[in-house]
């Protein structure tokens, strides 16, 4: 088994404060997805989820506020999984809730 990081990205502009019911449904989707991976014994680290605002520091000491308009997608968080190979890791990434809202998932092996 190898470890892979699954990075989830959301399209910028897709983020708006969801209604409580929608938020609950979304939470459940994340929990189901992570629970499904964990049930296979393949969750190495539940990782972290990132807030949607932030600061960017550029060379020359320029600090700008997020959201990060120059990017098409912003990083939403990551998770570490154990998988046999790339295919297996990609299979695990299927079902990640960001895919339903036009986001994407990046799968990278850990050295």
């Amino acid at each position, binding site marked *: 088994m190898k470890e892979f990081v699954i990075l989830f990205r959301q399209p910028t502009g897709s983020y708006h404060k969801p209604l409580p019911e929608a938020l609950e449904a979304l939470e*459940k989707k994340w*929990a*189901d997805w*992570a*629970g*499904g991976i*964990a*049930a*296979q*014994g393949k*969750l190495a680290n*539940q990782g972290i989820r990132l807030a949607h605002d932030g600061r960017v520091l550029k060379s020359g000491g320029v600090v700008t506020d997020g959201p990060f308009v120059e990017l098409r997608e912003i990083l939403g968080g990551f998770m570490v999984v154990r998988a046999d190979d790339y295919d297996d890791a990609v299979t695990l990434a299927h079902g990640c809730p960001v895919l339903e809202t036009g986001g994407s998932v990046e799968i990278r092996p850990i050295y």
Partner: protein
Amino acid sequence: MPTPADTRLLLKQLFQQEFSKIVAVISSRYGLAHVEIAEDLVSDTFLTATEHWSTHGLPPHPTAWLYTVAKQKTLAYFRREKIYTRKVAPTLTATAESATPSPEIDFSPQYIRDSQLKMLFAVCTPLIAGEAQIALALRVLCGFGIDEIASAFLTNKETINKRLVRAKAKLRAEGVRMELPSEAEVADRLDRVLHIIYLLFNEGYYSRTQDEVIRRELCWEAMRLAVFLTENELTNRPETQALLALMCFHASRFDARQTADGGIVLYGQQDENKWDTDLIAQGIHYLERSASGNVVSPYHLEARIAQLHCLPGDGPDKWESILQLHNHLLVLQYSPAAALNRTYALYRARGATEALPEARKLRLETNHFYWVLLAELLQHTDLPDAITCLKRALEHARTTPEQQLIRERIRQLAKRED
């Protein structure tokens, strides 16, 4: 005047209550390396009590009597031992705990408590593991006889004796000491203690043995140890309360989950009237008290799941809550049982179509519950395949009641197939 039968019953009760206390006090005083001698001294004390009480009648304070006699025997033993070490083996140095022996052995409630707590931490050392540790806990912490432990593990006395001897040799070799962990260490060390108590309970609850008395005693002993931990400030943590709540909820279904002849009654078929409402109430009490601090331990989640199982009714909402708790639990800690239970909850909350692909991903081919679960999901769409799965389950089931249950299920499905 008590009858001989009364005296025997009292002695048995006193043995269960006092054996581990006196062993803990002597070991605390003279060092854990002498735990075996402590056991012998206490057994000898009870032998003297049996002889003396049957001819002279019960003393006015039986417990105090036992402490006094145990004290005399212990002092006599170590006095002889000291002469031996001084004259015969002068190079042997005393252990740190017995560096300054004074002829006092303290049987005050506070000293007994502290000694028991120290013993609990010592026995649960990570240096010993597996069945040897459980056997040692049963012997030293719960006062179980070798034959009782053998019966619990479905093995013979020689095997248990070997395990105990090895475990105690390890304690000596590694110099495990009777001491309380520091404030900084306690969380880590307590984790291990709670884990052993949890294993002890499971050993009783899911035991391979058919001996109902032993099974229940294992569970009660585990609960007693957890109650003991809640009574000590150092160890009364939210996780301790949560573990105790979990055990109360499970134990409440003891009568309901078993047929008169020792067969298994599945949850769905259990008579809810046989659930022990007092234990459920106690479980709720401990679960409420566990809800402090900001740690959600696996015990909290398992206790909450067990509590939901104690609620009557079987709607999808209940199963949805159980599913979410299992999701959380699995993210904290994987276990095959949790993975199977999660998938069963998914099935009950949302149906077989959603649960079947998730079940296939578990790949627990050597676990008979995995095949039973697949059969449960497949019976709606593919009866022959469901029966094939049950046959695979039969290959991996280890106990007779489990095999009976699977055969019965095969018969039911085969009937529907016709």
